[in-house]
């Protein structure tokens, strides 16, 4: 049924979304280099196919939880890139009024519930959302993104256990980019595929090429259908690679350039573009236009952010506690 979803019109929209993420993150990276943005930044350049592929199949009212590398997930769920960039820049006009920053994006209006700075920190939160959804019987889903680094943390295992026991409508999306912070996965565990853990807890799991938009959608659509039908959790492991270091400013010496060159061949955006071209759905000219369009939007977001006011100091001790409702 995924193939049905892949009519070229829709694929073009997806490509546009992928370009938007790429352009957005490259702009963020540039601003960081110029010291116009400070703080701890984690970019997902090269992982766009996972975010867009996975979230393109969700309903607006599905709930998404991210990790520390989640700009792309927020955009894929429909976040406003102006508010997103402004948040990363610590401005008053940001989604969180400058209180959250890059690692703590919350865009509730579009169902991106929260990111976290703690590896694997939102996995249990997603269980809760799934529990609530199940109770409300609205066939809502919770989707949580995390990296392979989270696979060695206790709460990850506790969560698989509980999700399976209680048959919760949650989809675990593992972005296995082969690196936990600075260390290759092989140095962290003897398990090559994190999907194996899900299977241990009797959760249906699949591993796909995360740089292949169509493959991600194929597997994800099965997961969504199963979850939506109330048949319990699903686990989708996407093998991908990030082009950047762990955080901006990380020299990333621990990765050989050959790997990067290798990766460039697999660039998820180029791959989709190729397909559309072969289908004669888009010309080079249109593709180029799409790219510059995205870059223009990113530029506008940057301009909006940098011209936005800093939060007022009075803001500093507001919103520590919610006022009685």
């Amino acid at each position, binding site marked *: 049924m995924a193939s049905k979803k892949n009519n070229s019109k829709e694929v073009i929209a997806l490509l546009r979304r992928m370009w938007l993420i790429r352009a957005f993150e490259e702009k963020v990276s540039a601003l960081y280099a110029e010291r116009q943005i400070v703080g701890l930044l984690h970019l997902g350049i090269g992982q766009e196919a996972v975010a867009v592929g996975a979230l393109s199949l969700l309903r607006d009212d599905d*709930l998404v*939880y991210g990790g520390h590398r989640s700009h792309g997930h927020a955009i894929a769920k429909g976040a406003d890139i102006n508010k997103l960039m402004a948040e990363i820049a610590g401005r008053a006009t*940001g*989604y*969180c*009024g*400058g*209180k*959250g920053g890059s690692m*703590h994006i*919350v865009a*509730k209006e579009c169902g991106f*519930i*929260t990111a*976290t*700075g*703690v590896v694997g*920190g*939102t*996995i*249990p*939160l*997603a*269980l*809760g*959302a*799934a*529990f*609530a*959804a199940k*109770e*409300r019987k609205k066939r809502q889903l*919770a989707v949580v993104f995390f990296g392979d680094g989270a696979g060695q943390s*206790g*709460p990850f295992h*506790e*969560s698989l*256990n*509980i999700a399976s*026991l209680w048959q919760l409508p949650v989809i675990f999306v593992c972005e296995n980019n082969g690196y936990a912070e600075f260390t290759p996965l092989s140095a962290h565990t003897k398990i090559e595929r994190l999907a194996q853990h899900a299977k241990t807890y009797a959760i249906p799991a699949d591993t796909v090429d995360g740089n292949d938009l169509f493959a991600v959608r194929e597997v994800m659509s099965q997961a969504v259908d199963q979850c939506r039908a109330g048949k319990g959790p699903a686990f989708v492991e996407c093998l991908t690679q990030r082009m950047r270091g762990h955080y901006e400013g990380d020299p990333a010496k621990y990765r050989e350039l050959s790997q990067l060159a290798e990766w460039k061949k697999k660039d998820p955006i180029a791959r989709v573009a190729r397909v559309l071209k072969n289908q004669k759905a888009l010309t080079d000219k249109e593709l180029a236009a799409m790219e510059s369009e995205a870059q223009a939007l990113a530029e506008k977001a940057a301009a909006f952010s940098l011209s936005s006011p800093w939060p007022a100091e009075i803001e500093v001790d*507001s*919103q*520590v*506690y*919610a*006022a*009685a*409702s």
Partner: protein
Amino acid sequence: MEPQPTMPEQTYLDAIRSGLEEEMRRDPAVYIFGEDVALGGPFGVTKGLAETFGANRTVNTPISEATVMGLAIGTATAGLRPVIEIMFIDFITLAMDQLINHAAKLHYMSGGQLKIPLTVRVQCGISGAMGAHHSQSLESWLAHVPGLKVVMPANPADAKGLLKSAIRDDNPVVFIEHRGLYWSKGEVPANEQSVAIGKAALMREGTDLTIVALSSMVAPALAAAKELAAEGISVEVIDPRTISPLDIETIANSVKKTSRMIVTHEAVEHGGIGAEIVSRVQQEVFYYLDSPIVRVAAPFAPVPAGPTLENKFLPNQERIVAACRRAIAPS
């Protein structure tokens, strides 16, 4: 909601149960999570709730404190009003990251977009020689965390009233019960009466000295006050009930009147909530103080298991009285 029979005399434990029951009846979004809660929990606090409201609202969880805490927080981000029971406060150590890095911060980090109406029920304290993994009082950790509220009821009425406020609060509230108080009895006013979080209670009026006592130390403090009254020393006893936010105004006003104060709690003195109370009071009413504020709390040691050691470890009426005498007549 349907009316409940009023219960003049009730144990602390039953008061908590009826508080839970009334709130679950009042609001279908209230859910209970915890180990064995559907079976009543280790002390029977949640007894019967699964039968009344169904096992889907009184949920037995695996022994996975970290994840169950996160799960409860997650249900709160999705609109429920979870109540999670951590069997012993000692085991909250296992859920610290979810509680401190997530529950306490999500509202603020999200610029107010998210609310976490979470109640964390734990029981603490020394009762029955359980040793250093089942007897601790760890409230000051939690009072140190902006975004959390922390309450410590000392009697059945406050237990029920504060629990209701905690469940109705839109913020994460840690509700710290004392195991040693579970079977103590007291008057409990008619249902639906909640006790405001952040308001101290004046337990006894006096003019010569103020005792600020928490949780299990309120009773010995009142006994000490009686003992001293016989000697003509008039002692005022205040129970803060909530330690975050702290009702410093009530305490400071009392000290303005008495000019002398001691603080007593069961937790280890160093880094305890007493330190915060002393600092605040001396800052607010320094020039009213006639003698140093003394803390009567546990020594800087893990809780020993042996009963004699336990007794030595526990602050008690005797030590409170001695401290009061020192404060009245500094040597």
